[in-house]
């Protein structure tokens, strides 16, 4: 009550309050450290524990993978402990020697330029699509979704009439297979997932039931099982002559699996769109498909962008499971190479695993960073 007596009963401003610049912020390294790392006893303890942990884990890591590592050599002898290097570390020589196998699998050596060209064409397409300020992105999409698949098929499988020797898919392997499986999975799962998600919300009962059955069935079964079924059951239903190639069967399995997950992700986005948006779109005379394409999906996909990328990252790593139906993806090539008697040793296995981890991490972290930047861009546009 004492404070209230200080409040004037009447107040009239005599002069307008000027707009002033904000006070200088307390900047500087020292201040940052104190504010962020040493602000309280608990924070100080956490900081010290982290420093100890880093001091414990990083030096041996560096010693094994860099300082004591063997960088060149022609067999396991080079990587074994020797008087010159008693504590032999990682065997990068192994990766150097086998690198082309990791990239191409058994793809004929004389034809590997075709794979390189495919990588280039794919990188070009991805760059065109993902670089949001790129010119003529609609042509980029046309290139990516129509031209590139045809070009890739001709390049990789071959077309004898024009002088490209045919290369059966059982010779494909390594990063080539991983990239093909992941790309096909992503490119098909998004549109299929969107259709399934729309189907699940459809007013037409049959469409709804079919969508729900597909989604729930595929989602309720492990990817390995889906791959097995695609690989073993498909030939039972399709006549021998039309039975698709082994790699194609795995691709179908992966695409089906990914689209079921994508459907649920997209459904979450659709559920976030207020009813008023549907009503406004209907009221101006848009038909169902135009309303969906022009008003609902653009908003739903933006909301779910982080989840879509999350699904893509999961899919990219799940491609390693295609080995189960006898396909030599990147991970599988590393495993077979480390089992080679000329190279087999503990450090080769560890190095191979580390190399695989590095590859998958770089790809997935790239996707994650791109998604984060795209999200920021959308936020800056000041929607909602």
């Amino acid at each position, binding site marked *: 009550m004492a404070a209230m007596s200080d409040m004037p009963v009447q107040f009239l401003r005599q002069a307008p309050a000027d707009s002033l610049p904000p006070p200088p912020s307390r900047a500087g390294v020292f201040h940052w450290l104190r504010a962020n790392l040493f602000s309280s006893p608990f924070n100080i303890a956490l900081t010290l524990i982290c420093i100890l942990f880093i001091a414990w884990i990083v030096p041996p890591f560096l010693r094994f993978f860099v300082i004591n590592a063997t960088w060149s050599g022609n067999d396991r002898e080079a990587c074994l402990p020797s008087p010159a290097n008693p504590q032999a570390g990682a065997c990068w020589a192994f990766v150097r020697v086998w690198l082309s196998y990791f990239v191409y699998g058994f793809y004929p050596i004389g034809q590997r330029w075709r794979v390189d060209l495919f990588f280039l064409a794919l990188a070009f397409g991805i760059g065109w699509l993902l670089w949001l300020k790129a010119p003529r992105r609609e042509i980029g999409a046309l290139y990516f979704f129509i031209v590139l698949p045809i070009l890739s098929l001709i390049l990789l499988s071959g077309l004898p009439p024009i002088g490209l020797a045919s290369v059966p898919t059982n010779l494909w392997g390594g990063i080539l297979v991983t990239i093909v499986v992941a790309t096909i999975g992503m490119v098909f799962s998004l549109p299929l997932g969107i259709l399934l998600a729309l189907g699940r919300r459809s007013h037409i009962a049959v469409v709804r039931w079919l969508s729900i059955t597909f989604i729930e069935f595929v989602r309720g079964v492990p990817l390995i099982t889906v791959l097995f079924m695609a690989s073993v059951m498909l030939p039972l239903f399709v006549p021998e002559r039309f039975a698709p190639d082994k790699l194609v069967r795995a691709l179908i399995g992966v695409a089906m699996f990914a689209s079921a997950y994508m459907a649920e992700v997209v459904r979450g986005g659709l559920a976030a769109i*207020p009813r*008023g*948006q549907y*009503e*406004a*779109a*209907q*009221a*101006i*005379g*848009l*038909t169902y498909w*135009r309303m969906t394409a*022009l*008003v609902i999906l*653009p*908003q739903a996909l*933006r909301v779910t962008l982080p989840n879509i990328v999350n699904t893509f990252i999961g899919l990219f790593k799940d491609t390693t499971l295609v080995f189960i139906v006898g396909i030599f993806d990147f991970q599988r090539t590393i495993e077979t190479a480390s089992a080679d008697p000329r190279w087999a040793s503990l450090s080769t296995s560890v190095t191979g695993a580390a190399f695989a981890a590095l590859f998958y991490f770089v790809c997935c972290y790239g996707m994650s960073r791109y998604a984060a930047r795209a999200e920021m861009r959308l936020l800056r*546009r*000041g*929607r*909602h």
Partner: protein
Amino acid sequence: MEKRPEGPRAEASRAEIAVEIIALNKWFGEFHVLRDINLKVALGERIVICGPSGSGKSTLLRCINHLETWQTGRIVVDGIELTDDPKQIVAVRRDVGMVFQQFNLFPHLTVLENCTLAPIWVRRMPKRDAEALAMKYLERVKIPDQAQKYPARLSGGQQQRVAIARALCMNPNIMLFDEPTSSLDPEMVKEVLDTMVELASDGITMLVVSHEMGFARQVANRVIFMDDGQIVEINEPKSFFDQPQHERTRLFLQQVLR
């Protein structure tokens, strides 16, 4: 597309009626929300519908462009009978503009794109013509300078005026307003009402669900009072406000006018 009867006589008689509602009944589950609604709205007529919340007035309005379905009764809009046929529904919606309480602008599109969407995709208008048309209506609602902004950057009153411009871009014969000022801050109500008054002077058919009694007095040809899903009273604004006939109308007006 529009199924209008041939011959001058039929056209004349049709042209006089913008909306005809015959013995309309609607239930939400067990709840009888619209009861035996009969209404004829002449072309160019301006009607304000008022009534307590839950009286079914918004639901009635939303039936006119088939945002709601109904169980029995008929609705004929601009000579087109509304059935479950999607073609008929779209034909009616091309003719009927709607403004919502919550604006419902498309947040991912700029103000200009909000306005050109339907002309481009429903009327198949070239983009440049659609933009010229949109600018014409944005100027009429006095916000042409906001055309390139996203709706989130606009005030509520500005958003509602964009929503009006968006509906006008389809050159509708009939405009439906569902409580257009109810979610606006007080200082923005007037700018939206002024826009609607100006629109009324153009002779467009308007059906407005609103509690703005001043607006009703100024522009309405007829005022409708609804309660419990029924039309209780219809009258000219002067008689409606000065000599309400029904007891429930009197009670309602006492509450609203105070």
